[in-house]
């Protein structure tokens, strides 16, 4: 083997080596060690800032125009709301809007203005619910059950409120009615500690949006409903890496 042949052999060897490296490189680069799966679809309900319900005050302020209210905090646009009716064709109020249905009921449609509305009790002292009010659920109070209409409503005018101390309030002023019993919560709410505040922490740069009691609590059943759990984090340990 002369020098030229040696040279050729060395160069050919290098060529084979490089070609091999090319193949190896492309296979690792293209063969793809793909760790990731497909990104999930957008879910606006994860990020909306609306409260869990709409209060009477909010609906009253809207003047019937609900376009400015965030109905889609709970309802999705592609799934329109389907109202439910009972066997007699009476609307079954949704749990979240119970007080709205209450407040929009026109008492005078059934009760004459001069008629005295009397509560009836059974032998055990429990209130007898008339069939027309069967769907109206009052569960105010976890233990004692503050479910007597006139504890909060004015007996003389059912669309107005009356505190235990006799002070009359409009439906839109319900916060002060709540405050008449729930002092510590009202104190905390006043200083921003209880309840929700949205918008700006810095008053110089913008206004904070302070929510009323009934923006979150249904006055007839103030316990917050159970909420949907959003998805947990990926289990890396179950995915094999």
């Amino acid at each position: 083997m002369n020098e030229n042949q040696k040279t050729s052999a060395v160069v050919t060897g290098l060529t084979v080596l490089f070609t091999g490296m090319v193949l190896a490189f492309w296979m690792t680069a293209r063969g793809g060690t793909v760790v990731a799966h497909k990104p999930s679809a957008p879910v606006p309900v994860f990020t909306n800032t609306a409260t869990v319900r709409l209060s009477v005050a909010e609906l009253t302020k809207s003047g019937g125009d609900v376009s400015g209210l965030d109905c889609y905090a709970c309802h999705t646009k592609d799934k329109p709301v389907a109202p439910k009716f009972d066997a007699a064709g009476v609307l079954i109020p949704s749990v979240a809007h119970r007080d709205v249905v209450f407040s929009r009921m026109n008492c005078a449609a059934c009760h004459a203005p001069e008629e005295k509305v009397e509560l009836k009790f059974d032998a055990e002292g429990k209130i007898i619910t008339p069939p027309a009010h069967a769907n109206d659920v009052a569960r105010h109070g976890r233990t004692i059950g503050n479910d007597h209409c006139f504890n909060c409503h004015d007996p003389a005018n059912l669309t107005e409120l009356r505190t235990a101390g006799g002070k009359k309030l409009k439906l839109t002023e319900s916060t002060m009615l709540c405050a008449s019993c729930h002092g510590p919560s009202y104190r905390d709410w006043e200083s921003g500690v209880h309840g929700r505040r949205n918008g700006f922490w810095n008053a110089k740069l913008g206004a904070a949006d302070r929510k009323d009691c009934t923006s979150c609590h249904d006055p007839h059943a103030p316990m917050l409903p159970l909420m949907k759990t959003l998805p947990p984090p990926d289990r890396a340990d179950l995915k094999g890496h």
Partner: protein
Amino acid sequence: MAANTSLPNLAAPPPPEGTSRRSFLRASAAVASGLAAMAASLAPLRELSDLGSVEEFLQNHYKELTPVEMEQALARIRREVEKQYGLRPHVRDLRPMDGVEFVYCLNLTRCIGCRKCVHACVAENNQSRSPEIQYIRVLKMPNGTFDMEKGDHHYATPTVPEKGFFYMPVQCHQCKNPPCVKVCPVDATWQESDGITVIDYDWCIGCRYCEAACPYFARRFNFAEPKIPKEQINPDMAYLGNRPRHKGVMEKCHFCIQRTRAGKYPACLEVCPTGARKFGNILDPASEVSQILRHKRVFVLKEEVGTLPRFFYYFDV
């Protein structure tokens, strides 16, 4: 002579005497194909996007950037985001406000564990959806216990809260004595005057020392190039905040710097349905957080490790 011909002299053709035309051509062809193969083997390097631009590589540390250089950096980020996600972002460099120190308070009595904060945070801060990066972990623990080792953050009951359990979200505590900052070998993370510990994503070398140092599991590492659907990008960005990150850098909760330094509440607080989350300026005696620290029973997580968190948990009735 033999020494001269052992390898072809590429720089100076024609070949030295003693080499035949045939062997020269053969050698030249072999060398040419070798070079071509090498060029081809290096070609994929050109497609590697995670190497970043030369501009990014040459960029100075955040604290040493002049206003002009900062403008250039912001312009580069705008270009990169536009190229990758097809929208023109609003990128700013927001500085701390005077007389402001941020504090977060979380009411464990109110938290129901719905995880809305987790997902709002991901949407607000442009975290990778795949592989998944989340700044907030919600631990579920039985009432009457406080063993975080046994806390479950993968619970998936259809509705919350579950009877007999309480929920405890954990995120960056923005410590006053932050161990993550101490261990950073390149000063890519530091504490700002308003108490937020930030990361310069262009300076981070991805050594993950800070992740190991953090006692709260607050820091996340981009193991892969982050994937975010184009339509889910939040265009309101800050340099030290939610601008898109690259593979190989650390990230963590920064109290939504792009919102809070503009006076707004952080995203996790905005969506919390129960009002369990409270945020504000501790130097303002009328702020919600000042009220809470004065009147409520607060505690910090892992007080004994001496990190002095700015994140307080509290109970009420």
